[in-house]
């Protein structure tokens, strides 16, 4: 089970990007680079929010490029705005099972279970605004886990957190990815995060990996 990128290219404005990368299940790959270097562009290409002009992108030899974001074997924890403020924590997580929010009772059990797993039991009825920044990211992570996709993209998910919370989130992430054999791509500007997760490190230079 491998995520393969072969010269996946796109031109945005005057900058041309071209990415090649190979990441297997239960590996963590960290993408390092200054802001504006193209880290988000890479995740947007993999996630399906941008269409490459050429190149090959496969998971387990299946071509990903024609698939819409929701059908890709991929789930993303964004830097911010992972939650809808008017829905409860439980509803936000449940969207990972049914985008129409129509769940059977065993599905709701799964939602509660995953909230336990990320250390937020009993917070299901709260609105996101009542949660701290770290807790909000945990809810986002819970939904990613519930979607049961083999590839997890982490888009600077710890960037806005304070040191202590960041440490807690990192250990939680480390636990859940190793127990689930996920293939993880972490975008960060902090090499320490990459080291903590025993990640392979890649640096984007002049729009290329």
């Amino acid at each position, binding site marked *: 089970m491998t995520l393969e990128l072969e010269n996946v290219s796109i031109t945005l404005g005057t900058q041309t990007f071209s990415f090649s990368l190979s990441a297997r299940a239960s590996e963590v790959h960290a993408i390092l680079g200054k802001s504006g270097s193209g880290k988000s562009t890479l995740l*947007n290409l993999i*996630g*399906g*929010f941008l269409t490459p002009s050429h190149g090959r992108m496969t998971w387990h030899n299946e071509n990903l490029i024609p698939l*819409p*974001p*929701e*059908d890709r074997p*991929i*789930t*993303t924890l*964004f830097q*911010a*705005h*992972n939650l*809808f403020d*008017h*829905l*409860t924590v*439980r*509803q936000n997580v449940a*969207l*990972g099972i049914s*985008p*129409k*929010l129509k*769940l059977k*009772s065993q599905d*709701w059990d799964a939602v509660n279970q995953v909230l336990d797993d990320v250390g937020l039991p009993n917070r299901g*009825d709260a*609105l996101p605004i009542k949660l701290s920044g770290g807790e909000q990211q945990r809810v986002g992570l819970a939904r990613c886990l519930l979607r049961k996709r083999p590839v997890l993209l982490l888009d600077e998910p710890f960037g806005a957190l304070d040191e202590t919370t960041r440490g807690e989130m990192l250990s939680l992430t480390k636990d859940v990815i190793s127990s689930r054999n996920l293939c993880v791509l972490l975008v960060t500007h902090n090499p320490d995060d990459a080291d903590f997760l025993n990640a392979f490190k890649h640096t984007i230079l002049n729009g290329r990996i």
Partner: protein
Amino acid sequence: MTLRLTQALAAALLLFVASATLLPLAALIQQVGQLSVVQALSDVWIQRVIKFSIWQAALSTGLSVGLAIPVAIALSREPRFIGRQSLLNVFSLSLVMPTLVAIFGIVAVYGRTGWANGWLQQLGLPEFNLYGLNGILLAHVFFNLPLATRIFLVALDGIPPAHWRLSSQLGFHGWTRVRRLEWPAIRAQVMGTSLLIFALCLTSFAIVLTLGGGPRATTIEVAIYQAIRFDFDLSMAVSLALIQLFIAISVLWLGSIWKQEVPMAFSSLSAQDQWRPKSRLRSLNVLIIFIASGFVLLPVVGLLVSAIDPAFFSVLKAASTVKAFVNTLLVAISSAILCFVMALGLLLIARHCHYRLKLQRTSQAVRLLGNVILVMPPLVLGTGLFLLLRPYADVFSLALLLVILINALLALPFVLRILDAPIHQQAQSHDRLVQSLGIAGWSRFRLLDWPTLKPAAGLSMGIAASLSAGDLGAIALFGSDRVTTLPLLLYQRMSSYRLQEAAVTAVLLLLTCLLLFTLSQWLTKSRSKDVNP
């Protein structure tokens, strides 16, 4: 919903809005065959009408904006002043108050037999003549001073608290504080606000019709009405409409040079927790606030006082009043819903173009389509529709339908502006998430769009409903003895000097507008949390 069906609906909506706004003009031009714009322009009377239209709009704009600046500064400097909130509420009242109702109040205060002339007489001063330029300016300032004040107050509230504290430490007082802190904040809004008010005054209809007092003070809009309704001179009406279109587009073009979004001034204004440096001129502030309140409140009080009468209930119960009231409700509610649906549809199409298809220009063009109506005189729209439908149906029996359609189109730019922000903001922050979770179609609307839109939906439908309830333009064109609404009834009663009945009608119309405005906000107020397993 399948993709095909969604695409078909989107295309149908775009076609409907485009044809409803543009076909009437085309029909008019075709009907006339040969345009006589040049001939019209060389007519001395027309030249005078054009000059007067621009002159009165410029004066009204200058007065409204010039007077709004000190009022906004005084209000901003007195965040804890007792009457502040109620004054702001009265200011928002004038945003939903139908023009004719305000005119009635203005006549009650400043008219020949009004209070103001009574006071002037006692002081031995000459009589104030309301009719003509005086009355037009007074009414325009009555409507636009509160609008400008609210826009400027939002700008002043946007000054960071640190700047207020800094200005206090540096010892800025009075004029220095105006120059260094307050004026720079207001200045950014002055041009946009002026152009908005200029455009509103240029196309103002009811005020000029009732207070203009004759051919000396006629604007293009009223001349179009007279050409259609009394002379049935369509060629003249189209020429005038094209001239007005040219001026309105020039104003919009000027506005695009400054590239500023004028806030719609409906945002909540609460300076409760805001710290402001002590003002040395408290009494001056209070005086300014007092005068401004009096200016806006007097006509409202004048209206209410003249409606108090033993005959009040018998006028209310009269069959003509009841019929007009029912029609007004029907028109207001239907056009508010139609307008909301059109605006929402256009914005969802624009959102799809912007975020999914990455077609920013197309997205802007879709929004622009809903704003074309800003430069189209309502009377031209009405006449064009009249000509389009005449071969197929008895247009006067369709009067209410046409009035609903025209009013929905007229309210479209306002509703678009109010709904645009929440839709755009959510798409900006969450669209990738929505896409990756595969939330689409009806689920997206039900789960994500509607909950975030609800307050804006209530506000926009409230504004659309009260604008439509108070509109005279469309019903003046299509109305008859058989089909009236409250504004038309009020106009008829005013022009036949049945002032007592007019006063009651005006109060009823005002209450109807307030009711529609509060009701639609109440209906969309978020209640305590919904479904949970």
